[in-house]
């Protein structure tokens, strides 16, 4: 399809010049010919046509520049290309090389309407507003897991917990999280759950199991109690990776401030933000960094830490933002 009035081949030229200018500040006729694998004479004639449209600055010299209008148009072409390519890589999980060539062919082959829709969908899936975040993430994770499984040739199958590892919410352990896949219940129960926000796609976190058998969960940022019977009807996909590092839940999360002198540790996560976070980055408190607590000051604050061979001091309060696992000294 075309943006504006140019022929496909001229659009291509524009894009090539734009990319060249990104990389090397000047675009030469020779470079364009090399990249497009054509003769310099055809480059020159294309450039003359583009110049006539007021898109490039070319007066039979070696160097080519884009005019402001040309730059804008080229950027839009570039954007269209990257959108398509990202859609192919991010959602269809096509490898980058194939995506690159396919995007090139697609951008000229499909209609404006289709392209618009793909762009919109890609945007929605990538940058949807926070309200729908859980839903989209749930969908994405499932879809990606599904694709992954296909690639692996259906190697694994988990008979015990039903297909695709879907389990009832009631079978989760406290502290685990998952995505709601569907609600296996009669209409009225299902509707009442949905009204309370228990929607397929939402991420749910099991805080604790009460003695009564009902469950305290966190859903869309709010705490909520679910009856045992209801919980059995909520089918979820447990989230293995994230369940282990839910700081808000407070259980088994150890921070640097909990450790005593002599302990060795590995950084799992840093929860601070802003300036303190930036300083932590600078000093090397990043995922995977290993260190050891050396000592404390008189009132047990601040503490001294050896991290990757350097000695650092930090306040206990700052140390609480560093989630660590203890290592054998």
């Amino acid at each position: 399809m075309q943006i504006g009035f140019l022929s496909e081949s001229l659009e291509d030229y524009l894009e090539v010049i734009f990319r060249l200018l990104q990389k090397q500040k000047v675009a030469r006729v020779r470079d364009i010919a090399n990249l497009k694998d054509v003769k310099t004479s055809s480059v020159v004639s294309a450039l003359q046509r583009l110049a006539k449209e007021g898109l490039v600055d070319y007066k039979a010299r070696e160097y080519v520049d884009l005019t402001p209008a040309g730059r804008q148009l080229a950027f839009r072409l570039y954007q269209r290309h990257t959108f398509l390519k990202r859609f192919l890589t991010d959602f269809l999980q096509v490898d980058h090389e194939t995506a690159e060539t396919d995007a090139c062919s697609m951008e000229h082959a499909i209609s404006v309407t289709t392209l618009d829709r793909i762009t919109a969908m890609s945007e929605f899936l990538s940058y949807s507003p926070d309200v729908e975040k859980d839903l989209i993430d749930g969908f994405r994770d499932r879809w990606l897991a599904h694709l992954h499984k296909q690639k692996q040739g259906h190697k694994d199958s988990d008979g015990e917990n039903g297909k695709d590892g879907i389990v009832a919410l009631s079978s989760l352990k406290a502290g685990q999280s998952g995505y709601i896949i569907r609600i296996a219940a009669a209409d009225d129960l299902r509707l009442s759950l949905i009204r309370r926000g228990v929607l397929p796609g939402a991420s749910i976190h099991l805080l604790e199991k009460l003695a009564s058998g009902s469950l305290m969960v966190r859903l869309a940022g709010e705490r909520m109690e679910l009856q045992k019977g209801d919980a059995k009807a909520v089918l979820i996909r447990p989230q293995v990776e994230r369940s282990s590092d839910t700081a808000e839940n407070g259980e088994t999360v150890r921070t640097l401030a909990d450790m005593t002198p002599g302990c060795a540790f590995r950084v799992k996560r840093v929860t601070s933000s802003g300036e303190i976070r930036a300083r932590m980055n600078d000093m090397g408190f990043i995922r995977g960094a290993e260190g050891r607590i050396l000592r404390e000051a008189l009132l047990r604050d601040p503490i001294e830490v050896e991290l990757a061979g350097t000695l650092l001091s930090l306040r206990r309060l700052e140390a609480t933002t560093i989630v660590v696992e203890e290592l054998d000294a």
Partner: protein
Amino acid sequence: MRDRTRHRNRFHHTMKRDLLHRDRPQGGRRSGKVFRIALAGNPNAGKTSLFNALTGQHQHIGNYPGVTVEKKIGFFNTQDISLEITDLPGTYSLTAYSIEEVVARDFVMYEQPDLIVDVIDSTNIERNLYLLLQFRELGVPVVGVLNMMDEAEEKGIQIDHEQLGTILGIPFVKTVGHRGTGVQELVDLLLSLARGEETIEGRPVNYGRELEGQREDLVAELALDPSFSSQFSLDWMAIKLLEEDEDAIAKVKGSHFQAEQIIEHAARARTWIKRHFNEEAGVVVAEQRYAYIHGAVRETVKKKRPRHRITTTERIDRIALNRFGGLFVFFAMMFLVYQFTFAIGNPLSDLIDAGFGALGQLVTTLLPASLLRDLVVDGIIGGVGGVLVFFPLVMLLFFGLAFLEDTGYMARAAFVMDHFFHLFGLHGRSFIPFMIATGCAVPAVMSARTLVNPRDRIITVLVTPLLMCGAKSPVIAMLAAAFFPEKSALIFWLVWLAGWLIAFTIALVFRRTLFKGEAAPFVMELPPYRMPTFRAMVQHMWERGVLYLRKAGTIILAASIVLWFLLNFPQRTADTLPVSDPQMAQVEQTVAVDTAMDENKALQDDLVYSYAGRIGHAMEPILRPAGFDWKIGVALLSGAAAKEVIVSTMGIVYGVGEADPDQEASAERAPLRERIASDPTYSRATALALMFFVLIYFPCIATLAVVKKELGSWKWSAFLAVYTVIVAWALAVTVYQTGVLFGLGA
């Protein structure tokens, strides 16, 4: 390039002018071209010693325009080429969170040096490369200096610098800065780069496919504005946008014609990265940078088992940072610095004081009595003396501080004291200014520069002048001796303690009101102990001393002359007497009865007649609730120059001649003490109120001048002057009224 000139001019203006006149290659030899180098690196990486090794004595110190960050420029000259080396502030990173970091990156962006030389502490190569990579992203060629190779080898670290250079696309040179090892190789490399015999290819950091894709898209959109792309490195700008760097966002908003779309684009890209990595984009960028470094280091750095299992630093720290023993070490070190500063400094100051006194005497006898003589003796000689008395203190203190910094103990002192000071919203390093302020507020304010965070620095500077300093103590001792003869020592120490309490309380109030918000991070490096070089400490001392004279000295001198004018004008002539004011006339009568000496009377009359005397009179209604009369008002006004002057001025207003502060404070018999103790208008309540007032009110002019210099604005000096007067007044009124209530009013 054309578009850049406008920008460069704005930033260059002040610096360029200076440079052209003073610092271009010595001896007017301006042949050949100037190759401009920025010297960068982490704090404690040995940047300063390398700078000295490269430039020798050809240095010039100033400030970066508009900020209080210091800027040093040095030169290395050869026949055909001159290397102009600018020392950038030592930083760990190039975020927008500290002035130093913004200064460093702005310098590179706007001044476009030809080359950046990044000094690396070889014992900690990964964290140091983290900064180097960020500098390279600014689009200027970088050379890496692997400094402190001796310490690295001691620790069993071996670096294949050629291989590292090949991987990163950056030449590396190994040096030991303080011994000068490798400096010649560095110079050779710099010269051959300057002559264009060698070039640096440079290779950008690869942030991995995902981040690179996002960056590329941002760069494409940023490139739409040609004038923007000529000003900034777009690769750098795109990464900074992904890191949500406020300064970068502001720069886009300020100069890109499509700012809104770009900011929105960057926000979307950050969301995308967050979804993808389940972590903030800024953190992902940092992690990728480290991952890139880690890859390069794994290939080129071998770590053998160190020769000693326990390092010397650890051995010392086991004592110096011991939970309990650390406190003793701390106080011992502080005692040492304090004694060094004041035990040596005070006699020197007294000597300078006496010298200027003698000079004044000499001029008095040489010149005929005239207004000019008074100006020269009291205004100029007195003023210059007033500047120079602090000079030895400033020099010695900074020698001591350089010792603490260079050995590596300063960071440990902060570690030991931080918890206590943090309770009051201060930083562990605030201890030094507090300690020094018990001697003199002028060097104390200057020493606050060891505080890196501006908020900590400002609060510390604003409260340290409240402590009892060497100039306030004779006034307070004199009052204590006059009115509480049996308990004078106790009273003195109570007031001394009150100074600390008030300073801490006000610090807390400021932190809660003026400087609300998250505390500045304390995360800092405890550098390994190192033997400081004498040369470096002397150099540091000398630089501070000269800066004090140049920046603060002129202000102090000017203010002394103004004060002299207020105390001596208008001149009283024969026909201006008798004074018509009935109250004044009555005062003069009583005074006349008490004193026999005409000369004292004349001095007193002169003062009463001066502007200061008149202002003192006008102030009386305000001072009345604190139990002060106009005489005290006049004395307090004169104390603006230096607090001990209050005593001598009181001597004059009470008609006993110029009183000697030291004598009044401690001697057996002292005329002023006896005089005011018997004065019916004075009660013990008045004396107490006056002690507190003197303790808190208006820091002397010299302090205000250094505050202006250190914080870079008169605003803070004015604030300090105003708030201390208000607090002092409120406190004095409270003390006086409470005292009267408890029967101390008579």
